[in-house]
């Protein structure tokens, strides 16, 4: 079993990430599926994180937190965000199978980032919702 995204779909997604997040000053952004596969990624040219490991851990982390939410009677949490001294990570679910992970510094407020991410999620929904999965 596998699934495929076309050249056009991926280019569109990358353009959305660049235009709405990287251009804003976000350091790194990647779109993954819940298995930890990286679908698209972009950075500001200055960050060099091990995104494969980040993706695996992010999927695991999100999965674990969602399982915790269900135990306490929540469907899922509306905010998953980790604050560091210099770098922060924000998670956002797209449809039911994808995660948008954003790494950003303290020059962007979380509130504003969440607004932009909501925009990105809406735009990406349309692209991801239309591909063929087997």
């Amino acid at each position, binding site marked *: 079993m596998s699934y495929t995204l076309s050249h056009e779909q991926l280019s569109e997604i990358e353009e959305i990430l660049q235009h709405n997040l990287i251009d804003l000053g976000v350091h790194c952004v990647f779109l993954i599926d819940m298995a930890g596969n990286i679908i698209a990624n972009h950075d500001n040219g200055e960050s060099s994180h091990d995104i494969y490991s980040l993706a695996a851990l992010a999927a695991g982390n999100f999965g674990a937190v969602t399982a915790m939410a269900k135990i306490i009677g929540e469907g899922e949490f509306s905010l998953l965000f980790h604050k560091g001294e210099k770098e922060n990570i924000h998670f956002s679910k797209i449809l039911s199978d994808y995660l948008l992970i954003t790494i950003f510094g303290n020059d962007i407020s979380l509130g504003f980032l*969440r*607004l932009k991410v909501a*925009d990105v999620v809406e735009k990406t929904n349309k692209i991801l919702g239309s591909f063929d999965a087997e």
Partner: protein
Amino acid sequence: MVSEKDNLNIQVENRLEDLFGESETDSPVAAEGDDLEYYPFRILKSIVLSMDWEINDDVLNKFIEQLDRLKDTYKEDKILLLFLQILHSLGIYIKAKKGGAHPNAFKIINSVFTRLEKVVLSKNLSEAAKKKMLFLELSKFKELRGAIAQGKIDSEKKKMPAVKPAPAMVHKEEEVPGGLIASGTQGYNGKEIIINAVEDIKNLIRVEFAALREELKLLKR
């Protein structure tokens, strides 16, 4: 036996006295409007802080409502009023644009509020010092306004070859001497600057309201 019981009672009494006893230094229970404990910007502060975490229509409405209330309360205090008006304009702008708002709009809300708090809470601040803080925020606001106007011009240019910048903006640029943007304070009348700045803000509000009306019209279709 009796003395032990007494001893225990004494300990309990002492403990209760420590925790709940009357004391001259106790502050009176703060009633609303009681200046001793009442901080008039407490609600606004909590809204501004909550905007760090989440920005939505609910929060923005509360923000604008609270500002309306405070503007009424402080309508006689020109400096505070201007601070509040800047925040109000920003609130309306962000509500209209949401994710499309210029990123600096959010940063300026925080810095304006911080300076506003300083002006309100510092007991020994001179009028001149207060005005200086206001000017600093006004100049940031003006820069933002310019950046927004430029953004509009750029996107208009993409649509049409010949472009006229928004007349209100250009007009105001000519009226206000360059002093607001410059950090120096020589050579201009403070009162004039405040009046001009208020005009600037009024114009920004007018322009933004017009844009908002247009967008609402589109939504109604």
